[in-house]
């Protein structure tokens, strides 16, 4: 196997890492602020993909342009989920919380199956097949766009969290709920915001990959599993950690596909999970 092929796999992994980072940041944001492990995060990605596909199919709207619709739609969806599903069980045991989100995931997945059938859908744009060739390596243009889009969104989120008052309030709630209340922050509103943002990021990830990724009802499962590995490797609740970990996971998956076979990429990702749990369960950004 020549070096170019390996390099090609690494680049493909890096480009996909941007998407994994968006999904994982959404997951870790919800966990950090609301303390809920959202097993339905992958279905938020799936919803983003279907909204984008439907806008393209029915209205001929370009997938990138439709981010302006997909993200607000998913934001509102996330707010509703927090208000009506997460809020009543905030003080319930972990088991109840996890099962609620698993139930939500099953409902959404099968609602998609019911309304859109099991057919694989795709969006064909003029640029879907565009590619750049640099030194023997093929760079798919929509994958580059997806990566760039993910970086821009992750950057905007970081700015929002560090520079704005609302963003700082959000981080305060994540750090200490009681103290933030003493500072006059209403945690309930911050929860709504966190789940809304988390869903919007997942939806954006879905929208960004539609030009080169099939849309089908169970597409979210892979994303949520990878996002879990990313947030554990990158330390639960840490955004920087999620960015770094998504690079590692993306490249490892891509190399796994190259060396072990297309169907074993995910097995390599799980091997990373096992290694993390054995060697450093607190993750790359963890203290201990």
């Amino acid at each position, binding site marked *: 196997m020549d070096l170019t092929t390996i390099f090609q796999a690494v680049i493909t992994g890096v480009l996909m890492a941007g998407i994994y980072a968006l999904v994982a940041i959404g997951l870790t944001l919800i966990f950090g602020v609301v303390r809920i492990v959202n097993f339905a995060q992958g279905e938020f990605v799936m919803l983003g993909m279907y909204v984008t596909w439907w806008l393209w199919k029915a209205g001929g709207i370009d997938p990138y342009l439709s981010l302006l619709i997909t993200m607000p739609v998913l934001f509102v969806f996330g707010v509703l989920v927090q208000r009506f599903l997460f809020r009543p069980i905030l003080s319930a045991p*972990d088991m*109840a919380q996890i099962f609620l989100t*698993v*139930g939500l995931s*099953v409902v959404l997945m099968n609602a998609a199956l019911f309304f859109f059938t099991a057919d694989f859908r795709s969006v064909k744009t003029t640029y879907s097949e565009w590619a750049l060739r640099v030194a023997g390596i093929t760079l798919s243009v929509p994958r580059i766009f997806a990566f760039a889009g993910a970086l821009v969104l992750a950057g905007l989120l970081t700015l929002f969290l560090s520079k704005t008052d609302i963003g700082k309030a959000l981080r305060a709630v994540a750090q200490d709920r009681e103290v933030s209340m003493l500072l006059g922050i209403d945690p309930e509103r911050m929860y709504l915001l966190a789940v809304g943002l988390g869903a919007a990021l997942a939806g954006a990830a879905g929208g960004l990959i539609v030009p080169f990724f099939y849309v089908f009802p169970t597409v979210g499962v892979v994303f949520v*599993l990878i996002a879990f590995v990313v947030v554990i490797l990158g330390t639960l609740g840490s955004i920087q950690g999620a960015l770094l970990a998504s690079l590692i996971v993306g490249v490892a998956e891509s190399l796994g596909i190259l060396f072990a076979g297309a169907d*074993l990429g995910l097995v390599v990702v799980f091997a990373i999970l096992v290694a993390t*749990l054995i060697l450093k369960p607190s993750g790359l950004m963890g203290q201990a």
Partner: protein
Amino acid sequence: MKAAGSPEYYLPAGILLFLIVLPFLLPNPFYVHIVVMMAVFVVLGGAWNLIGGYGGQLSLGHAAFFGTGAYVSTLLVNAYGISPWITMWLGGLAALLLSLPVGIICFRLQGPYFAIATIGLAETLRLLVLHFRDITSGAQGLTVPFRGDAPWLLQFGSKIPYYYIALIMAVGVVLITRRMERARLGHYLVAIGQNQDAAEALGINSARAKARALALSAFVTGVAGVFYAQYTYVIHPDSVFGLGLSIQIALVAIVGGVGTTMGPVLGAVIMEFFIQSTQIIFAGQYPGLELMVYGGLLVAVILWRPRGVIPWFARLYQGLVARLPAAGGARA
């Protein structure tokens, strides 16, 4: 002292007697199939409950143990012609061995790690079985060659013998649960569930207690997997290792009531009745609708009946016991 004729004795005995004659009361094999599946899910929900309910460790990957039992047994039966009565224990043992590293790695940690790791385990096994098709025949699945009425090969011409085996397993799981509840391990798990730090301070090794409960749970689940493979004659990676099965197993315990002996029994009967009815009503015309209702049910139970149906049912049962007269003129 309660007299032998009191309803507290004869009511459970009556229920057991009813279960023994049940297959002869059912009009056709389809109904026998439904009660066999109910019994299988009593076993699976009960096994899950040992670690999920009593151990408080949420497994979302019990299909890993079920599929391991099913595949190990079927491979051995097909390759060496070993009787499934023997491979049943080997399948359970394989599942138990598989559970050991999971327990060792995850139970040092507190948090959602175990739930995620178990999903990862089942998915990994599913992908590996799909990948190594030379051994496992991949997506095609494995078939148990049909030999007709061959009790030594755990094959029967009628569904009724399967029913009795499943019934024995289901009663066995209830007895195992009851025994564990009253044994030291059960008390440890309850103490850990109430306050892990306090339990550790008293010298309880919480990781070891949970790992033991998981090993027991995995063993029973593996045995059930072997039975399922023999009963249905065919296993597929997507069905025996699938996330859907893992969720269904946990759902049985949750709907019934986690951490109770009879919760998974009730949960299995209710869920299986529900699944079969929706299958008859919708007849597969609307793909996704059944599971949509299913997931909705899960959300509804968590929001409004977090303790499952068991408290409600226990009241009903106690009421019945109080109202029934003592048998044979004996006074309770």
